[in-house]
């Protein structure tokens, strides 16, 4: 904890705040000692003077030196503020811990009262208490202290509730430890840090509030003076000697900022970590190749040498390392692989959705002959918006929670197809019905949270059908769904494909799903395609050891359930440390020295591409080891 606090002074803001805080505390101790007598020297020949060499901030209406008075006032200002904070903390802790200590009913009453009190601004509470306790320093301390209590109580209550729900508190309770003892032994030590931080911020606020009350004439009364009182005296003479108001104003501001920013810096330091930065990355991708060979007209998606680079902790990493494939009209292509193999990033890259998260390079990236690497224009957006549909993994989070489902579908039509709102809304209802959402008319007017998961995923597909898509890219569309709903969604995708000759790229970690739905399967490993084969050949004719291991890991009706299920030993390669040779070598039973030194290229046979030096060689007996690590 100490190291984390000391880290605060390493930021410029934190250091400034810490220096200010220490300076204010030192001034509070030393101010009256050093300048106490000077501040009370009355010089009636020199009243309300402008700043001069003798009086740097001028004099007040009795000829007293304002600078000295400001320096001396530090002690009273700081002491009163700290007293007020102490009251706020003690009262807040008592109220905040009450729900934990007292019974349920009393606890609820206390927290309801705190909730009501928190709704009122602190200054209003302070005025209320100032009336009750009377005008003066004592009244003001009580007023500001008690006014700060509800906020502190609420904070304590939240923190206590958070800790109380944890296992070790439950364990202590089961062990019969008394509530008070649990509070002091287990709960308070765990919430001390945020409480101290907030008390520091409160000290700054109390200092400023106190100045406010004194400035209103409700705080410190003459002949005592704090900064607020000096400000109150000075503002009346602001036209005669502005320094009389500005000097105490500046003092209270600096002191308040010091405490406040110190607390904020500590809070930020404790609360928020700094993630890896997305610094500019080196451009190492091959230069775009000239369009020498014409793309066959039935090719919907044409991808060559696709690379995606993202920032990593130790420099840029490349989770997709040169992927080349084509998708023809009406074709269903599956991309399978373990998590981290780059299949989702490939999907985002071919749909131009990588955005700020990384860089996409390719020698060719075309949808229906349109270059997707071209700059974003309204025309391009129109083409993409109507001819490319995307289905994401998590239907719970992929709809905008604040807008009605129908409207979210309709805006595709208003933006890209020039429809009126009315027509677009009708089309949305029509599309929802098309994806078999019952009562589509009513459902369109509902919000996403009123839909079930499967229904939401169907609506997402319906959103893609607002245009006339030539390609649907579905990234793990069934992973977040229940098994019973999964089949509905897959059937729907199949039906759409059959009806309109729409191509489908289905990304999944589930070999069985891909085998059932797709015509062709591409197997990815460590950012590359290692095998690309007809789905029908998957079971018997797979040639890459990795593909064969994936297929073997899928249990079927003939699997001997008395034996442990097959797994692939080892873990997938992290994108940050891909070895020089074949990335799969470390886990491969066939690997030899060549595999470890030289990366096998993907063979050119268009019907069955494979990247392996030992493609099709018989595998030794299966060995069981770690679990297959699947995509989330």
């Amino acid at each position, binding site marked *: 904890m100490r190291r984390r606090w000391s880290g605060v002074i390493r930021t410029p*803001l934190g250091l400034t705040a810490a220096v200010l805080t220490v300076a204010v505390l030192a001034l509070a101790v030393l101010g009256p000692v050093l300048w106490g007598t000077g501040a009370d020297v009355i010089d009636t020949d020199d009243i309300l003077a402008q700043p001069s060499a003798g009086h740097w901030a001028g004099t007040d209406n009795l000829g007293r030196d304002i600078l000295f008075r400001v320096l001396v006032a530090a002690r009273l200002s700081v002491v009163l503020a700290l007293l007020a904070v102490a009251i706020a903390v003690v009262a807040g802790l008592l109220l905040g811990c009450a729900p934990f200590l007292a019974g349920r009913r009393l606890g609820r009453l206390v927290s*309801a*009262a705190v909730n*009501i009190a928190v*709704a*009122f*601004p*602190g*200054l*209003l509470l302070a*005025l*209320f208490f100032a*009336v009750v306790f*009377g005008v003066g320093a004592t009244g003001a301390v009580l007023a500001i202290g008690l006014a700060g209590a509800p906020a502190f109580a609420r904070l304590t209550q939240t923190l206590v509730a958070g800790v109380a729900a944890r296992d070790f508190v439950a364990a202590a309770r089961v062990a019969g430890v008394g509530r008070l003892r649990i509070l002091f032994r287990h709960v308070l030590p765990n919430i001390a840090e945020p409480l101290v931080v907030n008390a520091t911020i409160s000290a*700054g606020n109390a200092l*400023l509030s106190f*100045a*406010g009350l004194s*400035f209103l*004439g409700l705080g410190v009364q003459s002949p005592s003076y704090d900064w607020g009182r000096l400000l109150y005296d000075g*503002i009346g003479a*602001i036209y005669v000697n502005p320094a009389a*108001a*500005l000097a105490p*104003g500046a003092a*209270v*501001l600096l002191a*308040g*900022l010091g405490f*406040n*920013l110190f607390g*904020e810096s500590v809070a930020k330091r404790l609360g928020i970590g700094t993630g890896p*930065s997305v610094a500019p990355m080196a451009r190492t991708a091959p230069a775009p190749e000239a369009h020498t060979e014409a793309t066959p007209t039935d090719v919907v998606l044409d991808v060559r040498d696709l690379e995606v680079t993202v*920032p990593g902790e130790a420099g840029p990493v490349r989770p997709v390392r040169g992927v080349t494939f084509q998708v023809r009209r009406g074709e269903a292509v599956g991309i399978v692989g373990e998590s981290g193999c780059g299949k989702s990033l490939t999907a985002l890259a071919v749909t131009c*959705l990588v955005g*700020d998260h990384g860089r996409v390079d390719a020698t060719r990236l075309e949808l229906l002959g349109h270059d997707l690497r071209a700059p974003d224009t309204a025309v391009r*957006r129109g083409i993409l*918006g109507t001819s490319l549909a*995307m289905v*994401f993994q998590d239907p*719970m*989070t992929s709809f*905008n929670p*604040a*807008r009605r489902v129908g409207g979210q579908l309709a*805006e*595709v039509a208003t*933006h890209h197809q020039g429809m009126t709102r009315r027509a677009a809304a009708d089309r949305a209802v029509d599309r929802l019905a098309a994806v078999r959402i019952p009562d589509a008319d009513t459902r369109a007017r509902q*919000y996403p*949270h*009123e*839909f*079930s*998961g499967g*229904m939401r995923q169907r609506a997402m597909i319906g*959103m893609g059908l607002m245009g006339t898509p030539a390609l649907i890219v579905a990234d793990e569309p069934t992973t*977040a*769904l*229940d098994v019973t*709903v999964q089949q509905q969604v897959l059937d729907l995708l199949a039906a759409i494909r059959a009806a309109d000759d729409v191509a489908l790229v289905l990304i999944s970690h589930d070999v069985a799903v891909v085998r059932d739905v797709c015509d062709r399967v591409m197997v990815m490993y460590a950012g590359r395609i290692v095998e690309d084969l007809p789905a029908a050949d998957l079971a018997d004719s797979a040639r890459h050891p990795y593909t064969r291991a994936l297929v073997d890991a899928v249990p079927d009706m003939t699997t001997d359930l008395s034996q442990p299920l097959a797994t692939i030993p080892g873990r997938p390669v992290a994108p940050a440390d891909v070895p020089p040779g074949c990335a799969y070598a470390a886990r491969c039973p066939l690997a030899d020295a060549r595999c470890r030194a030289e990366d096998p290229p993907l063979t050119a046979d268009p019907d069955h591409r494979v990247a392996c030096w030992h493609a099709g060689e018989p595998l030794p007996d299966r060995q069981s080891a770690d679990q297959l690590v699947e995509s989330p």
Partner: protein
Amino acid sequence: MTPTVATPIRTGPLARPWVRFGARRLGRLLVSLWVLVTASFAMIHLIPGDPVRGALGPTAPAELVAARRQALGLDDPILTQYLHYLKGLVTGDLGTSLSSRLPVSDVVAQRLPATLALAVLAFLAAVVVAIPLGVAMGVLTRRGHGRRTELAFTTTSIIVATIPDFLIGVALVYVFGVRLGWLPVAGDDTAAAYVLPVFSLAIGPAAILARIVRVEMVGVLDADFVRTARAKRLPARTVYLGHALPNAVTAALTLSGLLLGAMVAGTVLVENVFAWPGLGSTIVQSILTKDYPVVQAIVLVYGVGVLVVNTVVDVALARLDPRSLIRED
């Protein structure tokens, strides 16, 4: 994890989330109002010693004190006084000012508009500045962008937000009133007179609000549904303003309710800097002269203002984010 059963389409008014939300919210408002009214009633009784003696001073004749106590009903049983107070509130009778002998309701009616104008204008100014600023900053500093901009903006906004409004007011009086002489520094007679008070009241909340909007924006821009919006190939403007903003603004709205509440109270200090003829300068005068009926009434007015604002914000929140309707169930 995923609910498989859809929320049934409800029919009938009582089953509607809005009705339940309204009933619950109304209940909370009524309880808060009762607490407020009781607190303002109790205030005068919590003062140690005799408030009338305190108000009239130690030299006032005993008969006068007794007569005044009689007039205020302070000698009645406490419950009678409480019921009398409640009855007065319902009929709009807030008592009589001890110093001016005017009905308190007249004092409030005369002073309220200036305060209301100040608070509302300042709030609008803060929102109008803060939301575009926060959105722009959120877009500029979204994940992987503008780390220096983020640091500069965050630091500046924290500092600006920490400076109390009355100190900003004093500084503004000095610069624009004393040094430059451009703007009036007292009263509410001209439109120009509004500039400095509104500015001093608005700048802090604007900084806080802009900060929250930025943080929310940055978070929302990373959300899945923003990716969906981009997948629909909507123009950037629509993605930011149509999809991200409504989700970013809910937290800002919750906060702006608190800020408006704080602003209502903030007017007290700012009014005293600028000699603004509103409730804020009146309550301070009344506290100093121990004119308790006026203080009671003004505390009540501020409190009601805060409660109304909070309720309005909750309703607006429910409209913007329909999930909040069922969240508390």
